[in-house]
């Protein structure tokens, strides 16, 4: 090594000794990485939302003539369920920080159930709509946006089920090691915020 004061063999032994005494620490960058991933995810949605707005601004009439009115009541209830589930999942985070795995499992179970109710509600809405995917530009964007978001809700539920599955093993999660729980929670909040924007764009504006 150029310019190094220590002899190479000494340095070599130094590392060996160090790793025998206390294994090298690997700081945890996973939350940071997940946040970057969510930045990328939010840019997909930003792109799709901008496309929706562009379609809408350029169109002479929006939604195009003959598009049936959207019902707001059911999606409104669905929105309330999804927003409240963000508060529920936060309880799981507080629970695991107190090392209470059972409570964490309970809150995660409730959140996953609320997510499932949301998805069922959305499918119910789909089945009662009077337009299909290819009816017109509004219909296409409606299904593409809500469908893409629904896919994210589905992935969020899978993440929660994965956490529940892993938490059967004692000590898999504790107040020191709870990345899986934190990740699922962050992802869920993200899905929630996206829905709020989407709901405002498609149903209210």
């Amino acid at each position, binding site marked *: *090594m*150029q*310019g*190094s*004061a*220590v002899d*190479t063999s*000494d*340095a*070599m*032994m*130094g*590392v*060996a*000794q160090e*790793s*025998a005494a206390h294994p090298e620490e690997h*700081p945890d*960058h*996973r939350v*940071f*990485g997940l946040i*970057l*991933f969510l*930045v*990328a*995810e939010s*840019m*997909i*949605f*930003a*792109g*799709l939302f*901008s*496309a929706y707005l*562009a*379609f809408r601004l*350029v169109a002479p009439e929006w939604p*195009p003539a003959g598009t049936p009115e959207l019902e707001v009541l059911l999606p409104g209830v669905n929105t309330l369920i999804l927003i409240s589930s963000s508060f529920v999942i936060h309880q799981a985070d507080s629970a695991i920080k107190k090392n209470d795995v059972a409570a964490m499992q309970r809150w995660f179970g409730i959140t996953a159930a609320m997510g499932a109710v949301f998805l069922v509600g959305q499918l119910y809405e789909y089945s009662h709509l009077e337009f299909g*995917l*290819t009816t*017109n*530009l509004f219909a*296409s*964007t409606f299904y*593409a946006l809500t469908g*893409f978001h629904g896919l994210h809700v589905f992935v969020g539920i899978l993440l929660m089920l994965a956490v529940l599955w892993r938490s059967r093993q004692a000590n898999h999660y504790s107040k020191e090691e709870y990345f899986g729980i934190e990740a699922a929670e962050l992802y869920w909040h993200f899905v929630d915020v996206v829905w709020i924007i989407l709901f405002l764009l498609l149903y209210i504006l």
Partner: protein
Amino acid sequence: MTQTELKATPASSPPPHGHGETRKWTDYFTFCTDHKVIGIQYLVTAFVFYMIGGAFATAMRTELATPDPDFVTPDVYNGLLTLHGTVMLFLWIVPAGAGLANYLIPLMIGARDMAFPKLNAIAFWMIPPSGILLLSSYFFEPPSAGWTSYPPLSLTTGQLGEGIWIMSILVGGTASILGAINFLTTILRMRVPSMPLTSMPLFCWSMLATSFLILVSTPVLAGALILLAFDLLAGTNFFNPTGGGNPIVYQHMFWFYSHPAVYIFVLPLFGAISDVIPVHARKPIFGYRAIAYSSLAISFLGLIVWAHHMFTSGTPPWMRMFFMITTMVIAVPTGVKVFGWVATLWRGKIAYTSAMLFALGFIATFLIGGISGVMLAAVPFDIHVHDTYFVVAHFHYVLFGGAVFGVYMAVYHWFPKMTGRMMNEFWGRIHFVLTFVGMNLTFMPMHELGMRGMNRRIALYDPQFTDLNVVATVGSYILAVSTIPFIINAVWSWLYGPEAPANPWRALTLEWQTTSPPMIENFEELPVLKTGPYDYGLGYIPDRDPPELYGEEVPA
């Protein structure tokens, strides 16, 4: 550490895992999480695709040697054109940049690996499927709407191939995003404690800017391609005007990625050249901070210039004005960099190594491409030469001049570190001369052709353009030949080249402070910064500097 402490080490302690071992050649074909293996995997894969894309280009130039479509049919030509563009951009330049970044970032910042090694390997192993998918489309029904894939053209020609094309880009784009997450986390969180951001090698700064661009813009392309896939496969009409859709929205979304993408292609090489020039000119880099921050300025401005690709798409005048101004402004941070490189060369002790020659070729050709870029930013001129060979000349000067010269430069410079062997300098110079001459012969006449109104992307042309096209075709053959000395040199040197010392160029950045090739996990013990990355010829001041600083003065 003293001898007594050494003896105190228990005899039963396990041998230092990984340290001092070297890689077997078979490791390069496995799902290996070592960033150095992944870096070389990326580079070699990218180079294979470069050869394939180059073969497409040579076939196209052969076709264009005469005005009539006599070598291939226009349909085949359209397929070649689309695959040439897509392969070169998504499977050559992007993976080549990712390969350099993977290999160099952890070494340069004194880390043992990337932040997420497994994710890193996953990202790499998405590239070969993406490439195979894309190339396979040629045998079914080649996509023939160009690498831009504008609807409605892309919805009506080569639909099967178009679907495969979309799939391939989505896979490659995902790999790119995963890579960017890794680079950002590694650079921001894993530097050795003694290295603040402002002591990083400039390559790391440029990768910071590149990764930010990838992270922000690639997902938008994914969104556009998903909608395009719906149009193609599910019969929706997002972008199809006959069904009430709006093709301009696709163009906006596409260029929101694809303009920043040119900075994604070239910024890593901006960083690499900033690291190569000071070493071979034995001078500190001129304006470290200016070059570092201009990368960030480019990546920010790069996000707000996209519509200059759309001046003929019926864009409203205010939008043309806005994008014309931002496009001209982005030449400023780029010019700052070029100024910094030239000022570093000024009165330096320039060693004309192959790496330095390619660096000089990079600056010269990139500058020409940059100047024609400013010309194209002006709306009236752009409308005049839109879709002519002038545009082809411009972006090949930027991409060939920037990216290809840059990658060759980086390979000549870091080859001793990567393989532990020196490359042959004589054949390196032959390679440079052939590349430089071939490149200018191929693309310089295209400026004139474009000004005279020859349309791009068409297999046949009017006879008055023949002479200059023949020149360009001859140039492209020289370019094709120029890769032969490089391949032989690289393969031969890797196997039989003279063994490289740890620091053959007497460089100061951290990657040269370990063995060549670096041991598994990079460093015996994590290095401590003792100098700035470019303190060449500054000397060692006995009263101020610690004695182990350089051992001796770093020769200028």
